[in-house]
């Protein structure tokens, strides 16, 4: 069933892509094809692959999952929470600076996913940002946002 939704999604996406392609201004200078021809080809291919997946899903007998059993049960809320936590980190990276935001990010993750081992976690969320900051700014010559800290 999920495969049919996927086929529908790919079809819709290809449709949007083809529409966006048709709206591109055409400046046919230099080469006869212009900027639209290849995207039209891609969009067309997208529609074909969607149809292909749909046909494939019809041929799979219901009840027999393709291949192995799924390895892990799904914990979607936790996945979304981690993504949201990444967003918080990225939102703060230029505001607070790399050191503080990264330490906060790692502290949060380890506090949840490596519960109870405070010492080890502290070593990670203090050591990693400082080590990376020094390596990038001092050795590699790549600057990272300093933020509110004076160094």
């Amino acid at each position, binding site marked *: 069933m*999920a495969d049919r939704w*996927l086929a529908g999604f790919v079809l819709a*996406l*290809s449709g949007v*892509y083809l529409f*966006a392609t048709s709206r*591109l*201004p055409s*400046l*046919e200078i*230099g*080469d*006869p*094809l*212009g*900027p639209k021809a*290849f*995207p039209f080809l*891609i969009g067309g*291919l997208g529609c074909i*692959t969607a149809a*292909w*997946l749909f*046909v*494939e899903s019809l041929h799979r007998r219901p009840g027999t999952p*393709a*291949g192995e059993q799924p390895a*892990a*049960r799904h*914990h979607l809320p*936790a*996945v979304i929470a*981690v*993504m949201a936590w*990444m967003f918080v*980190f*990225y*939102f703060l*990276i*230029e505001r607070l600076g790399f050191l503080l935001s*990264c330490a906060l*990010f*790692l502290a949060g*993750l*380890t506090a949840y*996913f*490596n*519960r109870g*081992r405070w010492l*080890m*976690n502290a070593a*990670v969320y203090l050591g*990693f*940002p400082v080590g*990376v900051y020094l390596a*990038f700014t001092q050795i*590699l*010559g*790549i600057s*990272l946002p300093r933020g509110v800290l004076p160094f």
Partner: protein
Amino acid sequence: METLNAILGGFAVAAQPMNLFFVFLGAVMGTVIGMLPGIGPAAGIALLLPVTFGMEPVSALIMLAGIYYGAMYGNTASAILINTPGTASAAMTTVDGYPLAKSGRGGAALAIAAIASFIAGTMGIIILSLLAVPFATFALRFGPAEYFMLMAFSLTAVSALTGKSPAKGAISAVLGLMVASIGIDLQSGQARFTMGIPEFLDGVGLLVVIVGLFAVGECLRNVEKWFEGTLQPIPIRGKLWFTRDEWNRSVGPITRGGLIGFAVGVLPGAGGTIATILAYATEQKLSKRPEKFGTGAVEGVAAPEAANNGSTCGAFVPLLTLGVPGSGVTAVLLGAFIMYGIQPGPMLFQNRPDLVWGLINSMYIGNIMLLVLNLPMIPLFAKMLYAPPGVLLAIILGIASVGIYSVGGSTTSLYVLIFFGAAGYLFRRLEIPAPPLILALVLGGIMEQSFRQAMTISGGNPKVFVGSTICIILLAMIVVAVVMPLLMSRLRALPGRVAARSGSG
């Protein structure tokens, strides 16, 4: 003669102290990256790319290649000790490696795997050196139409052969082509599909897609696995060596496995995982005691381990001589070449023999280092398998974020990273293979360019794509690549315990 001089010159490059250091670094990191389940060579190379920007391209490529073949050594330890392949191409090693470890022969399994990897790797480099120049010379006859067909073949083969569903592979490739078309069209100057985001005018960065799909996507998947608890590794017991009998039984599988691996590695799409399955199945068929396979036969470790190292060397043939990668990892490597401003392909052998042969010859040194590293040091490396998954998760996400920020220079690229991380997670859940997307993203721009060039030359006549013998042969190969999985699924319906496990890298 000229070639011989170039090869010898390559040794001089590879033996420079700086480059020796980077081979070593690549080998060590490759071993670690290969060993840790959840981070494969594609993600590992992508995570390290930002750091290599200030480096000499030769040194950087030597190190990145070291990560690739080093991972083929490292992935063994987790396969044998925790029954989880470190990367997809070690899946077959678990079949006999884990039973061996349970019966106390884990040390022997690890040692035979290291030796098998070394022999097959070295054999592979020699064959690579022999094939490279003829391949490159042949490729000089390719025009834009031939190149387009070649890339189309590579993309079709990777889509059809990675993962369980060819349709999903094709969808992955189409999505990659769509992402590749974002940005300014170089021939007309027209901006396409930028969705009003100024950063997208230059196109969506290759790194952010790779790191998102492979590293962040895998981390998000591991968040779910974290709730299941972790497997404790089996401690390595006994000496890290094998008996004479075990060795005698492994010599044949190592040689054959290495050759099978190389041949499969040259072909686009097939890659390490299929090479290991073929090598394993071959040995089982040839064996006088096939019933032992699956219960802890040392041949069942030697053959796939040789095959996955052989395939690594094979995969360099199309990458270096044609400039067309045939797998996810080599696509990432091509991305690295392009980022350093180097276009691999036949001309590279004429213009930069120092770079090509320096890179190829560094692999001999890398394999020796890996053998030395892996035999006595593997128990030490295996301690990494005890590292708490929560800490690994946090560190990988940290490295991914810093790397992308330092390359993109703005938080926009980080938000794009979250997007592709979510995509990577969904790909895993829906069992869509990611390598076709990466390959399509790397090849998309070049494909469009050669497509348009070919059409310009022919005056808009699409017959140009069947206008030469090479084109027609490539078209036939595209058809075979599409039909092949259908035939294979018929075969797989027959009873058999050798099931292809799809992989991410």
